[in-house]
Structures are given as structure tokens and as C-alpha cells.
């Protein structure tokens, strides 16, 4: 356990500390930038962007070797990856706009073809004399082992810049993500903001290549916003929640990974984020599954109870098993299906409410009442006691003959 605590406290070495900080910053930037993609319902565009970085990494390596350099300069490789990621993005847009293909097909085509091309280029590099130890495969799944100090600096600085850019552009991006048409009408340059969003996503992807790898970086863009969505309904806080979840995942994941061998950084970061997601999915108070299941069951019983009582009031036989169970469970009917005294009283109350609603709807024809008349809303929630008294007075009047038994 000690190595883990050391890593968590940034005591596991200079590089490990820088990587942990870099991963936390990256996670924050990815979560925040991913929020806009998620709200724009284009989460998987980032998958195409991420896979499209591979040929760029390879080409940049070849170019740098050809120019007489080392070929492994991280900044150079990242620049190359950004170029092909951008081309991939344009390809997705071109296909979606110009042809009958939908965006999902375009995304899948771009990510797989660019990846395939990247693999071809990697095999070319392997045959180059200087390419055998290039280690470009580490960009597939990320690897922080043997990372140079200057690489860690690139990641930490890049992460900080991405966070800063997200913060500066948060307002126009939120506007576009929530309601593009309204944003356009109020003079926001929507295509420009969209492009900026994608540029930010690209930046995060490129910075994350070394830590998380190009296959899993998309998780950092998608999982935090989806997780954050369970905890808040407000857009501004969604960004910060997502950033926080991403940052925590990045930090914890990097620390875990540094604490033991055989714990690859990228997958661990993603699994930490996924764990936070699972917890939120099940336990979040309003949108979580546990709460939803509970609510649905309660709601279904409410519907069956009401329908059962209506049937009792009209002296109709009840066939539905669940309805019978609910009524029996509440002691409203006996085992043989005959209404108990409480059942009759409740049924009478419901029958009275139904008659009240009839009158209410006759009197208040233009108050948009139809929407509340859904069979479940108690009339006391909609009308004041004196209004209800008035309904009762009318029920006692001429209508009673028509509706009475």
C-alpha cells in the first residue's frame, strides 16, 4: 500500500508527480471539453478524431528522421497527430454534408481507415533503420513508463492551456451546445464555435495520446460528462462537475498506475472514470437507476390502485393480477375480490373525485386543465377548497341524476 500512498502524495518521483498532475489537468480539460460534445450529441466524433491521430504520429516521425532529427520529439509527434486528426474531422464533415451517409457511418469509416493507414505507416517505420526502437506503439494505449522529463512538461503545460481555453470559451460554447438555433439567432457564429469545440477536443486528444493512448482518450471525453449528467441539471455546473470527475479520474488513475508494475496508465484512468460512472448510474439521487426503479414501481402501483378503485366504484370485475395484488395488499379488497369497507370508502372517494373533475372541466374549460386531468393528480392539488365545494354543490344539482347510480 505504501507505494500507492507515495504516488497519491506525489512522492513517487519527479516524473510520476508531473504525470499525475498532467493527467489530472488533462482529465479536467477533457471532461470540460467533452461536455460540449456530449451536449451537442456528437460524443463519438471524438473517436474519429482520436484514431485519426495515428497516421500523423507516424508521418511526423518519418519527417523528423528525414530532416535529420531524433524522430521521437514529443512536440513534433503531437503536431503531426493534430494535422491528421484535423483532416479526419474534415472528412467526417464532408461525408456527412455532401453524401447520404449519416454521421455515425462517416465516423466509423474515418476512424477505421485512418487507423489502418496509421498501421501501414507504422510498419514502414519498423523497416527504417532508426525506427526499430521508435516505440510509437505506445501511442496506441498510452505509456508513461520511461517518459522524459520534457515530455511530462509538455503534458502539464498542454493540460493547463486546455483548461484555460475551456474556461475562456465556456459561455459561447454552452450557448451553442444547448440551443444552436437560438445562439445563431442571437448572433453567435455557430460554425465557428463548433470548430473551436472540435479544436479543443483535438487538443485534448493530442495531449492525452502519451498518457491514455489514442484508443482510450475518447473515454476521457465521454465518461466524465455522462457521469456528471447524473448529478446536475444545470449547464454551467455540468462543465465543472465533468471537469472535476475527469480530473479525479486522471489523478487517481495515474497514481495507481505509478504504484505498481503491470498497471497500464490509460486503462487504469479509464476504469477509475468508469467506476465513478457506475456509482452515479446506480446511486445518483434523481436520475440514478435505483431511484428510477423505485419511482417506476411506485408509479405503476399508483396507476393500478387507481384503476382498481375506479373499477370497484363502477362495480366492474377486475382481471389484472397486479391490480388485484395491489388492492389486496392495501386491504381494499378481500382475498375473494370483494371490496372491504375501506375499499368501498376509497372507491367512493375516487368516484366523487371523478365527478368533481367532470364539473371542474366543464367550468374551467380554458385553463389548460386537460393536462392535469391525467387520472392521477388529486383534485385537491389543482383547486382551492372553496372551488371544490362549488363543484360539490353542482354535483348535487341537475347533473346528479345523469351520473348517479
Amino acid at each position, binding site marked *: 500500500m505504501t507505494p500507492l500512498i507515495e504516488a497519491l502524495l506525489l512522492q513517487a518521483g519527479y516524473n510520476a508527480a508531473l504525470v499525475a498532475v498532467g493527467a489530472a489537468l488533462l482529465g479536467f480539460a477533457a471532461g470540460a471539453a467533452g461536455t460540449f460534445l456530449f451536449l451537442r450529441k456528437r460524443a463519438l466524433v471524438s473517436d474519429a478524431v482520436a484514431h485519426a491521430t495515428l497516421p500523423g504520429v507516424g508521418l511526423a516521425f518519418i519527417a523528423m528522421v528525414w530532416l535529420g532529427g531524433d524522430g521521437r520529439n514529443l512536440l513534433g509527434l503531437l503536431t503531426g497527430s493534430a494535422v491528421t486528426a484535423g483532416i479526419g474531422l474534415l472528412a467526417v464533415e464532408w461525408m456527412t454534408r455532401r*453524401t447520404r451517409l449519416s454521421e455515425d457511418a462517416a465516423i*466509423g469509416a474515418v476512424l477505421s481507415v485512418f487507423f489502418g493507414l496509421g498501421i501501414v505507416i507504422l510498419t514502414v517505420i519498423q523497416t527504417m533503420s532508426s525506427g526499430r526502437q521508435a516505440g510509437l506503439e505506445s501511442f496506441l494505449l498510452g505509456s508513461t513508463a520511461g517518459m522524459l522529463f520534457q515530455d511530462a512538461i509538455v503534458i502539464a503545460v498542454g493540460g493547463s492551456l486546455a483548461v484555460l481555453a475551456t474556461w475562456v470559451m465556456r459561455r459561447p460554447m454552452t450557448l451553442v451546445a444547448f440551443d444552436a438555433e437560438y445562439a445563431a439567432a442571437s448572433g453567435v457564429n455557430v460554425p465557428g464555435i463548433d470548430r473551436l469545440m472540435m479544436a479543443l477536443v483535438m487538443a485534448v486528444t493530442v495531449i492525452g495520446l502519451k498518457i491514455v493512448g489514442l484508443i482510450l482518450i475518447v473515454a476521457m471525453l465521454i465518461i466524465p460528462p455522462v457521469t456528471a449528467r447524473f448529478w446536475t441539471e444545470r449547464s454551467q455546473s455540468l462543465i465543472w462537475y465533468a471537469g472535476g470527475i475527469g480530473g479525479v479520474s486522471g489523478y487517481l488513475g495515474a497514481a495507481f498506475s505509478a504504484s505498481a508494475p503491470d498497471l497500464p496508465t490509460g486503462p487504469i484512468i479509464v476504469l477509475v472514470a468508469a467506476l465513478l460512472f457506475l456509482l452515479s448510474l446506480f446511486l445518483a439521487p434523481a436520475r440514478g437507476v435505483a431511484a428510477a426503479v423505485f419511482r417506476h414501481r411506485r408509479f405503476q402501483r399508483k396507476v393500478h390502485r387507481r384503476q382498481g378503485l375506479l373499477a370497484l366504484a363502477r362495480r366492474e370485475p377486475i382481471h389484472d393480477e397486479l391490480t388485484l395484488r395491489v388492492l389486496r395488499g392495501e386491504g381494499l379488497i378481500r382475498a375473494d375480490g370483494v371490496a372491504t369497507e375501506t375499499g368501498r370508502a376509497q372507491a367512493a372517494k375516487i368516484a366523487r373525485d371523478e365527478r368533481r373533475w367532470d364539473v371542474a372541466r366543464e367550468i374551467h374549460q380554458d385553463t389548460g386543465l386537460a393536462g392535469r386531468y391525467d387520472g392521477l393528480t388529486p383534485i385537491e392539488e389543482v383547486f382551492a377548497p372553496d372551488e371544490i365545494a362549488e363543484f360539490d354543490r353542482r354535483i348535487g344539482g341537475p347533473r346528479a341524476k345523469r351520473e348517479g347510480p
Partner: protein
Amino acid sequence: MGSEFVMFSLTPMLIGVLASVACALPGNFLILRRQALIGDAISHVVLPGIVVAFLLTGVVAAIPMLLGAAGAAVVAVVLIEAIKRLGRIEPGAAMGVTFTTLFAGGVLLLEQSDTSSVHLDVEHALMGNLESLVWLRATDWSSLIDPWALAGVPEELPRIAVVCAGVILLTLVFWRWLKISTFDEGFAQALGLPVGAIGMGLVITAAVAAVAAFDAVGSIIVIAMFICPPAAARMMTNGLERQVWWSVLFAVISAVLGYVLAGYGPLWLGGENAVSAAGMIATVSGIILALACAFGPHRARVGARAEV
């Protein structure tokens, strides 16, 4: 192009062709159902499925791997649906969450377990290794009727051949169900067709095709096989039957041309070593798609999109 071709190129090329066709067929329906990225998700979860199957059985054998991958695909699809419905999350994001998580789990398991002795490693899983599937017992074309030589074909070949035949058979048998439930799901449901089972069957078929192809071309390039030939085919015709024929043709062209270019292209350019055949197959399929997008006679949309 004599004995050397039969020994080194015939089987990988055949495997490439069969894998491409097996993936392209379900791909046609996935694309029309706007589920192209289900192919993406499936091919990513093939890795964890195979790793789990290996950890459970301790052997690298065809049947457990197929079952493991198909199981992982089902788990992934169920998870995606669950996240979509329970969390009210849009489908793309639900897919992204699911397949990246399962993939990360697969990589971690692989790194943690002792799989170095067997040919299961992440890079191989991602990139495939088509070139290694050679037929060493072959001497020349006459080996095709030599039982001893035939017994020595790489086991991947009969495996993908059986899967490809199975996919073709399923496509033919369930053609009408697939067509109607893809075009008009509500109507198919009203007819009493098992719409949910048809959709799940399509996904499982795609998963089985993906895992059989995975050996040869790796899990990412499988996505190209699912999407590119059918997408290019969609630009060539407005009939579903003809689209499927076009997609098969494009799949075969991608596989053959991709393999040839990977093997001989560098030699023609003065290089010495071949490049990744799987990568080249994906690249060729991408070039075909790009050409179809630019010049295909039916590249523009004509009908209105579905609103629901």
C-alpha cells in the same frame, strides 16, 4: 506467381476476402439502421471477450474465443441499451462509455495475466497479422487437391470460411425480416415479428464475424470492413439487393488489392519490406469509399430522414 504465391499469398488473401465479406454483409444493415458505430463498439469489445474466454478456459481455441467475443458483444449491447434507457443518455455517448470501459478492462486483464506464452497481445489484437497465415505445406497449385497439404492450411481459414458461409446463409434466410425491420420497425412489430430478437441477432452475427476476422485483420480494421464497403455500395444504387452485391464486390476488391499492394507495393516503389496487409486493406476500402462519395451515381440523399 506459382508455388510461392500458393504458399505465402493464397491463404492470407482468401482469409482477407472471406473476412471482408463476412463483415460487409451485416454492415449493410448496421449502416441502414444508423448503428454503424455498433460495429465500432463490437470490434472494441472483441478483445476483452477473448481475454476473458482465455482466462476461463486457459487455451487459445476457436470455439471459446468465438463464444467469449459473442458474449462480450451481447454484454456490450445490453449495457449500451441499459445506459441509454436507465440513464437517459444519447446512444453515441452510451456506446462510448461502454466500449471504452470494456476495452480498458480487457487491456488491464491482458497485462495482468500471463498471456505472453500465447499469441495474445494487444498490438496483435489491434492490428492483426494477416501475413503470418501462410500455407507452409503447399508446394504449388496441385496442393489444392493434396490431402496432406490441405490438412496443413492455417486453422483460421476453415474458421473464417465457416463463419462467412454462416453469415451468408443467415442473411439469405432472414432477408425479409432484416429488410422490413430495418425499414419500418413499427410496422414489423405490428406484424408480430420479433423485432428485438432480429436486432440482437444482427449484432451477434456481426460480433461472430468480427471475432473470426479479428485473427486476421485486428479489431480496429474490422470496423473498416463493417462500414466502408456497404457505405460505398450505398452510393452506387438505390436497391437493397444491388447494394448488398456492390458491398460484397467492394469487400473483395479491398481485400485482394489491399493484400497485393501491401505485399508488392513497397517492392514496386523500391522498398524491401512489405507493409501491414490489414492496414492496407482498410486503406483501400477507404479509398473506394472516398471515390464513391465523390463520384457515386447515388451519392446524394433523396428521401426525408425519419423523425422518430
